[in-house]
C-alpha cells in the first residue's frame, strides 16, 4: 500500500506553508483531510454537536492564524491539529461546566447531523481511493485499540478517562480513589507504554 494521506506529513506541511502565505484554499484542503477527525474527537469529548463544531472551527482558525509558527521539529501536522482539538474541546467542556455548575452530560444533539458510528467511514482524508482509505483507517483504528488493550488496566483507565472523557487528574483521583500524585505518574507511564506499543504496531504493519 502506498503511503496513506494520513501518514503523509510532507504533504501536510506543504499545506501549512501555503496557509502561512495566506492561501485560503489550502485551509479548506487541510480541513477536508483532518476536519472530520478533529470534529469526531471534539464530539467524543463534548457530547454536543454545536460545541464540537465550534471547537473544530477554533482549531482551523488557530491554524489560519498560526501556520507560520508551526514547528515540524515538534511533531506532525496531524498531531498538532489533534492536540489542539483535544485541548480546545476539554476547555470548552470545562467552561460549560463552570457556567452550569454541573457536568456537561447532555447527549449529543441529533439535528441534521449524519453520524456514522458503526461504519469505518471517511474522516475526510484524501487517498483518492475510498476503499484504500477505509481500509487504512480501519487498520489504524484496530492498531490503536490493540495498543490500548496492551496497557495495564490501571494505565488504560487513566488514559481513557483523561483523553476520551476529558477528566482532570484530580477528577480521576476522586473517581478511582487513587492518591493524587499516583494518577499523574500513571498517566505518564501509560503514555510511554502506549508510545512503545504504537511503535511496535507500526513496525509490524510495515512487515
Amino acid at each position, binding site marked *: 500500500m502506498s503511503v496513506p494521506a494520513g501518514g503523509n506529513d510532507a504533504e501536510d506541511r506543504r499545506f501549512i506553508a501555503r496557509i502561512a502565505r495566506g492561501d485560503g484554499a489550502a485551509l479548506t484542503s487541510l480541513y477536508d483531510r483532518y476536519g472530520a*477527525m478533529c470534529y469526531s474527537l471534539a464530539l467524543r469529548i463534548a457530547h454536543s454537536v454545536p460545541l464540537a463544531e465550534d471547537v473544530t472551527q477554533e482549531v482551523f482558525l488557530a491554524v489560519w492564524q498560526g501556520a507560520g509558527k508551526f514547528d515540524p521539529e515538534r511533531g506532525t501536522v496531524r498531531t498538532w491539529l489533534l492536540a489542539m482539538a483535544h485541548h480546545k474541546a476539554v476547555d470548552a467542556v470545562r467552561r460549560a461546566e463552570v457556567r452550569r455548575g454541573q457536568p456537561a452530560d447532555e447527549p449529543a444533539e441529533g439535528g441534521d447531523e449524519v453520524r456514522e458510528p458503526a461504519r469505518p467511514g471517511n474522516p475526510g482524508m484524501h487517498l483518492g481511493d475510498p476503499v484504500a482509505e477505509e481500509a487504512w483507517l480501519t487498520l489504524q483504528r484496530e492498531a490503536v485499540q490493540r495498543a490500548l488493550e496492551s496497557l495495564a488496566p490501571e494505565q488504560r483507565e487513566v488514559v481513557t478517562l483523561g483523553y476520551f472523557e476529558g477528566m482532570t487528574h484530580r477528577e480521576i483521583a476522586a473517581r478511582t480513589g487513587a492518591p493524587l500524585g499516583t494518577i499523574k505518574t500513571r498517566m505518564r507511564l501509560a503514555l510511554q507504554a502506549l508510545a512503545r506499543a*504504537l511503535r511496535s504496531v507500526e513496525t509490524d504493519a510495515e512487515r
Partner: protein
Amino acid sequence: MSHREHADSIGAYVLDALEPEERRAFEAHLRACPICRAEVDSLRAAAADLALAIPPALPSGRLRDRIAAIPTVARIESPPSPRPIPWLVRWPALAVAAALVVALGGLLASNIQMKSEMASMKQSMAMHQQVLTVLADPATKMTMLRGQEEMGRVTFVYNRQRNAGVLVISTMKTPPAGQAYQLWLLLPEPASAGMFKPQAEMHVVPVTGNIAMSKGIGITVEPEQGSPRPTSQPLLIATW
C-alpha cells in the same frame, strides 16, 4: 519545584488533565526545559493517535462552509486585535457583512441626521462609504456574549473611538409574555442601552449610550416598559 516533580506532570499535561494553575506552572518549566519538551512531543504523538480509535462522525456541510469562510472573515476582523473572535464565522460572511452595512448604515444615518426621505444618491453613497470605513477600522471589534448561550447567540460589534455599536442577534429565545430584553452598558454600573424583542431571523439592534467609556455589555429580561436598573442577572454578557 524540581525538574523531577515537573516531569511527573508530563503525562497529565499531554492529556490536558492538569488544573489551570498546574498547567501554567508546567508550561513555564517547559519553556526552559528541552528534556521535558522532547518527552511532551513524543507522548503527544502517541496521545493524538488515540483519536484514531474514535468511531468517525461526519460533520455537517455547514461546518465546512464556516471553515472556508475563515480567511475572509479573519481579514474583516482586525488582525492585530488582542483576542480575535472566531464566532462570526457562524454565519456566511456575506450575510454578516450585509447585516452590518445595514446596521451601521442606520446608525450613521441617524448620527448625521439625514432629514430628507429623499436622500440623494450621493449621500447614500457617502454613507455606504462611511460604513465601510467603520468596518475596515482596526479599532472596530467584535465579541460574542457569553453566559446562558442556550438562550441565544449574540455578537456585539463596536467601535469605542467612534462611540458606535450594534448587537447582531443571530438567535434569541422569545421572552416570556409581557417581558422584553433590555441592554445594559457597563459603565461600570449598568446603564440602559435600549430594549429589543427577538425576531425570527438574524437581525441587528443598534446600541445607544456611552460605548466609548463602557467596560462591557449585558442583556437581562425585564418588563416590556423597561427598568431603570437591571432586576435580574444578565443572561448574556461580554466585557472588555
